[in-house]
């Protein structure tokens, strides 16, 4: 029983990381219909930028803020220099474009930060907490808290502010959105910036848990993408469910079946779910043309 709780806690922690990354995918996808496979690279940049700042003696909180700003700007640049110029390309090309960007960013990062894993201090004192025979570290709690916070803030932003409505609008019906004075281009920029900020936040949260290095983005990108797909592209609650599900599948799979096979188990489960629900758990059902 204690084991089950431990596996669950671990699964939720890992799942929360995937969920934040997946929310980054969703933020961009729901506005621009682009899948940004460089999302994991934003996470990596978040962790490594924080490392540089803290080792340069920048106060923790300030470093936190600067990291998010720096990575957000990179996200904006990516949209402005690349995505905007490839608008209208088919999905295959867009996937390849973002993969290219990811490889490029990773290459640059390996030159800038080297290839060693680096250590970033946890947010707070990191003495583990004991809950009924299972333990969880404060940093892991932070990860879950940040995930919930991100979900909450995204909810507020999307559902309660004009910008959020504009996000949705330009995704649902770009033509009508333009007639309302919403510039899809600016929304696209904004979504990349926001999503990069989310990535940076994820990077900050997990840097103290897993030692960040230039190549951490690939794995996180793949898992985040999987979570977003599993949840149903474009659905934020879906991304969270997908992320947590993958985290739990991994940790329960490792715990009860085989740790070596955990990826195979997880991805087989994803395939199975897609077989039953070809557009993910909360995938968007096509609403039709909304009239003729």
């Amino acid at each position: 029983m204690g084991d089950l709780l431990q596996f669950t806690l671990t699964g939720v922690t890992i799942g929360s990381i995937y969920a934040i990354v997946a929310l980054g995918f969703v933020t961009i996808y729901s506005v621009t219909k682009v899948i940004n496979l460089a999302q994991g690279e934003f996470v990596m940049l978040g962790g490594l930028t924080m490392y540089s700042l803290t080792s340069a003696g920048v106060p923790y909180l300030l470093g936190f803020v600067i990291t998010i700003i720096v990575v957000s700007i990179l996200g904006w640049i990516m949209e402005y220099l690349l995505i905007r110029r490839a608008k209208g390309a088919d999905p295959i090309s867009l996937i390849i474009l973002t993969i290219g960007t990811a490889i490029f960013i990773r290459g640059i990062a390996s030159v800038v930060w080297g290839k060693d894993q680096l250590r970033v201090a946890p947010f707070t004192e990191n003495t583990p907490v004991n809950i009924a025979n299972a333990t969880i570290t404060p940093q892991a709690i932070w990860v879950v808290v940040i995930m919930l916070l991100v979900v909450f803030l995204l909810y507020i932003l999307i559902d309660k502010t004009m910008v959020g409505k504009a996000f949705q609008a330009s995704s649902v019906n770009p033509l009508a959105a333009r007639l309302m004075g919403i510039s899809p281009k600016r929304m696209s920029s904004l979504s990349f910036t926001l999503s990069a900020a989310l990535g940076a936040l994820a990077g900050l949260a997990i840097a103290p848990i897993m030692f960040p290095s230039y190549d951490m983005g690939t794995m996180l990108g793949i898992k985040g993408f999987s979570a977003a797909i599993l949840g149903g592209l474009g659905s934020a609650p879906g991304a969270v469910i997908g992320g947590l599900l993958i985290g739990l599948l991994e940790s329960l799979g490792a715990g009860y079946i085989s740790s070596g096979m955990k990826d195979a188990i997880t991805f087989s489960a994803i395939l199975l779910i897609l077989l039953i629900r070809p557009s993910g758990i909360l995938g968007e059902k096509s609403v039709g043309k909304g009239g003729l």
Partner: protein
Amino acid sequence: MLQVDSITKRFGGVVANSEVSFTVEEGQIVGLIGPNGAGKSTMFNMISSVFPPTTGTITFQGTRIEKLPAYQVAPLGISRTFQNLQVFKNMTVIENVMVGQHMQTKTNLFGMASLLLGITRKERKVYDQAMSYLAFFGLQDIFDQKASSLSLGKLRLLEFARAFATEPKLLLLDEIAAGLNHKETQEMSALINKVRDTGVTVLVVEHDMDLVMSICDKLVVLDQGVKIAEGTPKEIQENEAVITAYLGADIDEEEVEEEAI
């Protein structure tokens, strides 16, 4: 030949077609007309199996076709053109027509792969046949041009030729004259008649009333998803409901209570 029986189609909360029925007899040219938003294209897409109706049946020569995928409807002898031009633009004119002849030969992928000697006699036959189709539509001079380089008029002809190359029994023409000038439209009318004379039944959706009125044997008029009239062109032009649909009645005088949608 074609029997459309109480077809209804909904998209989300919107009803595009409601309980529409009509028939097309062999050898006729039938026109499907109606003001904008009447549900003509939706009906057309259902007949050519782009999507299935919500309820109702479509029968073609005794076969129920409303639930078949498009590639299975084509072999039964139904072919169509597209309003928004779906030519294969990266292919040449003759290649477009040769795709139209797809059903007339049978070789699978692996069989084709193993033909190390290149073109077979079959391919030559298809090619010659395609050439004759092009000649029929007056496109023989531009057979080797890329479709993307053609003018609108030629593109419409090409779509027509491609659909004709499937050797259909029923040909569906979706706004085949849209965007054409007067002279081109007249030529198109002549072509449609010529095609009918080869024994092909034709169903047209058309905005150009001159064209419709001059070639059709029978017209079916839709308005707001409902069939409001059916008859010869002359009958239709004099039909009050049709005039109202197109020009609008004076609603101050005519209190209509029905909730249309």
